[in-house]
């Protein structure tokens, strides 16, 4: 049965939920710490202006937090509803971080959230501050566990395939938790949340300054936002470098797509900006770009921390490169099919109680086990993700990330010398950078997830094998309903948020 449409609809539904979820999460991650810093200043100085400031940003945090929760619960359950084969095949590894997230992070957030919002008069100032910090820590712990799970999908480690049960099983929890891909992904993702939170504070404060309203409040906020944002941007740069390094090791197809690199090379440069040639095909001699500006050696350095390193391109990864020992994709597909065949033989022999055949099949399976996922693909070029979407998303993310660093630097500088109020252009730039922050964050996730295609789990399970066996119409219905509900709630959220900002800190 061809179930391409079902898989595409399921992907669309998951992508829709994830993209909406990511509209709210980064602000939660970043703003929670900024609020905690502001409240710490209040508790230290006992200046009620800082309390007012804290409460204003807290009110905006709450509006955003609620809808983040709503979209988050959907993501968790969609693994089961739309990706049931996936849930079974890797549930032994994937379910654990999700459950730990629930026990360690969600309860921390939801319990102390109530104190943070309603406990001003009910607990001591120190206890209240402690609760605010716990909410921030809880939010970030929650990101840790879900990104451990996501990192494992990008770079599966610490497991073994169990033929009896036809699934992967965990062999080392430490390997899953300290998976280098998960660590860099976690740090880079929370870094982007801190930047987003800072952009929000800087942008909203810029608006107050432009309107000449609540100027003292805005100047105080902007200095906290820009300081935190500047540090977070540097952190983002460092963790981005580490993420790219990890991708080069474990997901070479993603790296090649991110850079539109077809013909692999030593001393490869990074295309800083360029236009992809959409007629370019795998193995032909056309140029990859219509025009481009390249930073020499940078890709070799980024990927392998060595300017002379060879970076494989799409052609090398699909067609193979005998000189450099890169295996052609077709050979991987063949080995994968052998692994699948061995698995089938094993299961049949198990039913017939034919032990010698079972052992033979097991040995053949183990030989080809690491190619298992390739057995489900029908053509070698299927191993390559959509190049244009991955390339442009990556470049948008990096370009905007660099812009934010510069923005925070100048905002911080002019705030420190007391001239921020007169820098209209910079304040407008701050205001209009809020939507850019969302674009950068979503683009980052597109690179991570579209760049991972065709895999649900890199090299092990393609998305086509991961979905539930339901009919397309059912997914169409739920996808449509999600789109309507999420959009309506997003409109409500934005309208409420804008109104609260307009009301300002006095009445907040």
């Amino acid at each position, binding site marked *: 049965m061809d179930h391409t449409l079902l898989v595409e609809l399921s992907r669309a539904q998951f992508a829709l939920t994830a993209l909406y979820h990511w509209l709210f999460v980064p602000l939660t991650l970043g703003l929670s710490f900024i609020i905690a810093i502001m409240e710490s200043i209040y508790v230290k100085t006992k200046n009620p202006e800082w309390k007012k400031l804290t409460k204003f940003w807290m009110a905006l945090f709450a509006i955003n937090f609620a809808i983040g929760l709503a979209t988050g619960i959907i993501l968790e*359950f969609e693994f*089961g509803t739309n990706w049931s*084969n996936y849930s*079974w095949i890797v549930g032994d590894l994937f379910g654990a971080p999700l*459950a*730990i997230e*629930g026990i360690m992070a969600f309860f921390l957030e939801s319990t102390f959230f109530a104190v943070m919002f309603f406990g001003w008069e009910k607990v001591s100032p120190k206890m209240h501050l402690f609760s605010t910090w716990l909410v921030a820590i809880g939010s970030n712990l929650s990101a840790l566990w879900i990104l451990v799970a996501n990192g494992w999908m990008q770079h599966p480690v610490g497991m073994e395939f169990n033929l009896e049960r036809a699934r992967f099983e965990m062999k080392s929890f430490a390997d899953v938790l300290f998976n280098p891909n998960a660590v860099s992904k976690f740090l880079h993702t929370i870094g982007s949340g801190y930047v987003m939170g800072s952009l929000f504070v800087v942008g909203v404060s810029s608006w107050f300054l432009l309107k000449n309203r609540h100027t003292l409040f805005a100047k105080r906020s902007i200095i906290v936002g820009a300081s935190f944002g500047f540090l977070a941007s540097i952190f983002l740069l460092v963790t981005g470098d580490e993420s790219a390094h990890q991708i080069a090791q474990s997901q070479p197809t993603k790296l090649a797509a991110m850079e539109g690199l077809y013909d692999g090379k030593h001393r490869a440069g990074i295309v800083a900006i360029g236009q992809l040639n959409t007629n370019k095909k795998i193995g032909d001699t056309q140029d990859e770009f219509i025009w481009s500006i390249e930073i020499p050696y940078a890709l070799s350095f980024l990927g392998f921390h060595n300017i002379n390193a060879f970076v494989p391109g799409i052609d090398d990864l699909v067609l193979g490169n005998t000189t450099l020992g890169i295996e052609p994709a077709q050979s991987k597909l063949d080995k994968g099919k052998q692994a699948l065949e061995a698995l089938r033989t094993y299961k049949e022999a198990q039913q017939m109680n034919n032990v010698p055949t079972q052992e033979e099949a097991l040995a053949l399976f183990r030989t080809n086990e690491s190619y298992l996922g390739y057995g489900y693909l029908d053509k070698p070029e299927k191993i390559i993700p959509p190049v244009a979407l991955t390339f442009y998303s990556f470049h948008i993310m990096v370009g905007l990330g660099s812009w934010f660093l510069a923005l925070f630097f100048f905002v911080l500088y002019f705030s420190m010398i007391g001239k921020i109020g007169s820098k209209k252009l910079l304040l407008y730039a701050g205001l209009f950078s809020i939507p850019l922050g969302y674009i950068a964050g979503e683009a980052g996730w597109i690179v991570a997830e579209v760049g991972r295609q065709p895999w649900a789990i890199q090299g092990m399970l393609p998305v086509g094998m991961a979905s539930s066996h339901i009919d397309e119409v*059912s997914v169409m219905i739920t996808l449509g309903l999600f789109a309507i509900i999420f959009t309506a709630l997003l*409109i409500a959220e934005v309208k409420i948020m804008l109104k609260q900002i307009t009301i300002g800190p006095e009445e907040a």
Partner: protein
Amino acid sequence: MFGTLSLLTLQQYWWFLVSLIGAFFVFITFVQGGQTLLYAIAKDDKQRNMLVASLGRKWELSFTSLVLFGGALFAAFPLFYAVSFGGAYYVWMAILFCFILQAVSYEYRVKPNNFLGKRTYEAFLYINGSVGIILIGIALGTLFTGGNFMRNSMNFSAWTLPSYGLEGALNPFNVAFGLSLFFLARVQAALYFINNIEDVHIIARAKQQLFKDALLFVGFFILLVVMLLVMNGFTYHMGVVFPESHKFLNNFLATPLLIVTFLSGTLLVLYAIFSTLFKGSRCGIWFSGFGVILVVTSLLCLLGFNATPIYPSLSDLASSLTIENSSSSHYTLSVMSYVSLGVPFVLGYIYFVWRAMDKTKMTSAEIEADSHHY
């Protein structure tokens, strides 16, 4: 410590934990019950705001418990997660839609410029508290009555009916389960309001409401228990599943501890209702809460133990799920068992925060003074 336990012991331990988390969730559904009583108990906006504010300090706990219930099922019994969620698609999706509506409604209801209007968010809260809870009850009921699914030798599963789980709503036991939960949630909500709010009018009307809902709850609960005790179930031996008459009655008789917890839990809930209605007690929620946790844990533990499938298949008995064929590996269950040691700590700080926040009862003056009230 956990690593030395047998796989079966770990599976049973995790079924017990899942049951306990499910029971905790049912206790916290007083939030949902309260959402359906906003107009029955409050006579004006001011009182309604008090009810919402009172529930609003607990609503995240109900949401989080549901997420943890799902997460624990995923981690410990991934095949159940795959089969049920991927098969009874419409039921779970409908439940999810009901919970999306809840999450935003508290925060957005009285905010200026909220796009959909206050009454819409109140309707969302009502839908979550009624449809959401009844559907969860129906979904839980199918653990006893079964689902229409098949799985192959690779453990890939598919639902056999195009209604994708909605057919569960035609089974009287499942419906009784759903309605029992719904009225229980309303009973507990009334007990919670009486405990949490300092307002004579609200308390008086909550008592009137408690009386009506308690009668309906007791009626449906008796129906549920009678059906449970007389219904035929399934059992398994050496991996083969087959029918057994009066399976759940047999399970009760085989495990006297379950009879004790079930009966004492039921008595605590009845005592909570009685003491609130006739003795002026305002602590009913604590008795009923503890009672609900005992009753629901023991009900869910009727599955998972005594060779009982946790999800029988009505389409193909051999496809039925048991704790043994649907669980995670020994290694994962052991790792997760260490993590589970954090649960008492979590319960500890929830209790601590609850006490700190509710040490004085909520008054209308407090709501008016709070700039961030719901």
